[in-house]
C-alpha cells in the first residue's frame, strides 16, 4: 500500500542529490500523517507495485506520485510499474489493549471521522501479516484499513489490512534525561517544608 523508500534514498545518496534525498527520507520516516478527512472527501488511494517491498507504515496520498520520483533513481530496466491500487473506504488508528489466546483486543479511532466515539475490537492475530505478528504487544499502534483493491487485470477485491507501526526505541540517554529533569509534585510540598524550616 505504500513504498519502502529506503532503496530510493540510497540511490539518491549515490547521486548526491541532497534535496531529493531529504524529500524521500520524509517518506521513509516511520511517522505517518494522520490527517482529518471530511466525510465527503475523495477516497484515498494507495498504489502497490510488484516490486514494492512488504508494507511499511508510511501512509500518504503522496504515495501515488512516488513511483515517478523513485524511478528517476532506479537502475535502467528496473522501473516500478503500478500493478494494483487500493482505495480506502475506512481507516482507523488503533492501540493494543490486551493479547490473549492469539486474539487481540484493541481500541480504535476513526481517522476519517474524528467525531466518532472510540470503539473496541477484537481480531485474531491470523489477520496480520507474518512480519507484523512479532510487533503485537500491549500498547502497540496500528492502522486498520478497509477498502477496495483494484488489481492490474481489472479485478476489484474487498480488502482489510492491519499495519503495525514500527515504533522507535527508547535510548539510554533519553531515559537518563527524563530521570534528571522530571519534577515530582512532592517537590512543591518538600520545598514548602524547607521554607518553613528555614530559620
Amino acid at each position: 500500500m505504500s513504498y519502502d523508500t529506503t532503496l530510493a534514498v540510497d540511490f539518491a545518496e549515490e547521486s548526491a542529490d541532497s534535496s531529493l534525498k531529504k524529500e524521500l527520507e520524509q517518506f521513509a520516516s516511520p511517522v505517518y500523517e494522520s490527517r482529518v478527512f471530511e466525510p465527503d472527501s475523495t477516497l484515498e488511494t494507495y498504489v502497490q507495485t510488484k516490486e514494492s517491498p512488504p508494507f511499511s507504515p508510511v501512509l500518504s496520498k503522496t504515495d501515488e506520485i512516488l513511483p515517478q520520483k523513485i524511478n528517476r533513481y532506479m537502475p535502467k530496466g528496473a522501473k516500478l510499474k503500478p500493478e494494483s491500487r487500493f482505495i480506502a473506504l475506512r481507516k482507523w488508528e488503533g492501540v493494543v489493549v490486551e493479547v490473549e489466546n492469539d486474539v487481540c483486543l484493541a481500541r480504535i479511532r476513526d481517522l476519517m471521522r474524528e467525531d466518532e466515539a472510540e470503539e473496541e475490537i477484537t481480531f485474531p492475530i491470523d489477520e496480520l501479516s507474518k512480519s507484523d505478528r512479532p510487533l503485537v504487544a500491549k500498547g502497540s499502534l496500528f492502522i486498520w484499513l478497509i477498502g477496495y483493491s483494484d488489481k492490474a487485470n481489472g479485478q476489484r477485491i474487498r480488502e482489510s489490512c492491519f499495519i503495525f507501526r514500527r515504533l522507535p526505541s527508547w535510548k539510554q540517554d533519553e531515559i537518563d534525561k527524563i530521570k534528571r529533569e522530571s519534577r515530582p509534585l512532592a517537590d512543591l510540598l518538600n520545598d514548602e517544608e524547607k521554607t518553613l524550616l528555614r530559620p
Partner: protein
Amino acid sequence: MNFANLEAPKDDEIEVSIFGPGKGECVIAHLGNNDWIVVDSCVSRASKKPIALEYLESLGIPPDQAVKLIAVSHWHDDHIKGTSQIVRTCKDANFVCASALLQNEFAQFVESYSKRFMSQKYDSGTNEFAAITEQLFTEYAGKRPYPKRLIWAAANKRLVVWDGGARPFPVELYSLSPSDAAFSLAIAEFRKLMPQPGTPKRQAPSLSPNIVSAAFWIIAGNFNILLGGDLDKGSNRDLGWRAVIDSTARPSGRASIVKAPHHGAESGYYAPMWQKMTEPDAVSLIAPFSGGVRPLPSDKDIARIKKHTRKIFITADPKGWSPKRRDSAADKFSSTVVLTRRRVEGQMGHVCVRIPRGAKEMQIHLSSGSKSL
C-alpha cells in the same frame, strides 16, 4: 446534556451525583453551604468540557467559587480526563491524590510516557496527569510560602474539616487508602514500569492490580458516604480493601451512599467492606466500564452486590453500544474481519442522590440512560 431539569440543591441539602458515559466516571458532591467536591473526572463528548463543570454551570453555580476540593482516586484515563481543566478553573480548590503519585518514581513514569507516545489520540492518563502537574507548578512558581493546595491521600488520613460559621452541618473528609504497604509497592512497581533502552515506545503500561487507588469517606452531618475509587480487594491484609477493613484507625460508622469500587467488578469486591462499612440497602452507585476484555459490571458482579443492597443505580449500560453504520459495504465487511466490535462511550448518564434536611427518604433522579438495577 439534560440533567433531569434539576435546580441547585439548597444550602442544607446533601447531594451525591455520579456521571458516566460508559468509559469514565465522575462523582460530584454538595456538602452544604454551596461547598462542592469533585472526585475523578470524565468529559462530555458533546461540549468537550469536564462534566463536573458543565453540571455546576447548568445549575447556575460558578464552579470556581463552589468547588472546594478536587480529588483523583488514581491516574487512569477513565478517572482523570478533564481534571487539569477543573484544577485550572477552580483555583481555590484543594487538589488531592494518592501519596504515591506525588513521588519521583511516578513523575519519571509520567514524564516518560506523556507526549512521547507516537499517537496523541490515546492517553492512558499520563498526559492528563502531566497537565495537572504543569498547572500546579506554574501557579506555585515563585510563591513563598507555597499556597496549601496540594494534599496527599493515604490510609486513614483526615483531609479536611469544614465546620462552624453558617454551615448547616459539619463535614469531614477522609482518605482510606492507599495503605503504607501499597505506597511502597507502588513505588517499586513504577520503577519496574520505566522504559528500558532498546524497547519500543509503546503506550504507558498500567499498574495492575490497582493497589494505588485512593478511596474516600465523607461524613456530612448524620450521613456517611463511601467513594470506593478503583481500589482492589487486595492480595494480602496489607493491601486494598483488606487493609482498610483490618485497620483500627479508619473512621467508624456505616455509609448510606456507596460508589461501588472498580465499576462494581469482582476485583474490587470484598464482602466485609459491604458488611462492615455500609448500611443494609445502602444506595449503591456504579459507573460502568464498557471497555476491556470483560465490560464491567457483569451480571455476576451485580448479583454479588445485590446480596448487600437492593438499591443499585448505574449510569449506563455496561455492554456498550453498536458502532454507527456509515458505509454499509465497509461496515459489513469489517464484521467479517473482527470478532467483536463495539462503541465504549455513549450518552453521558447521570444518577443524582439528594438528601433534603430532615427528610427520611433519599431522592433519586435518573437521567440520560441511567437506570436502577
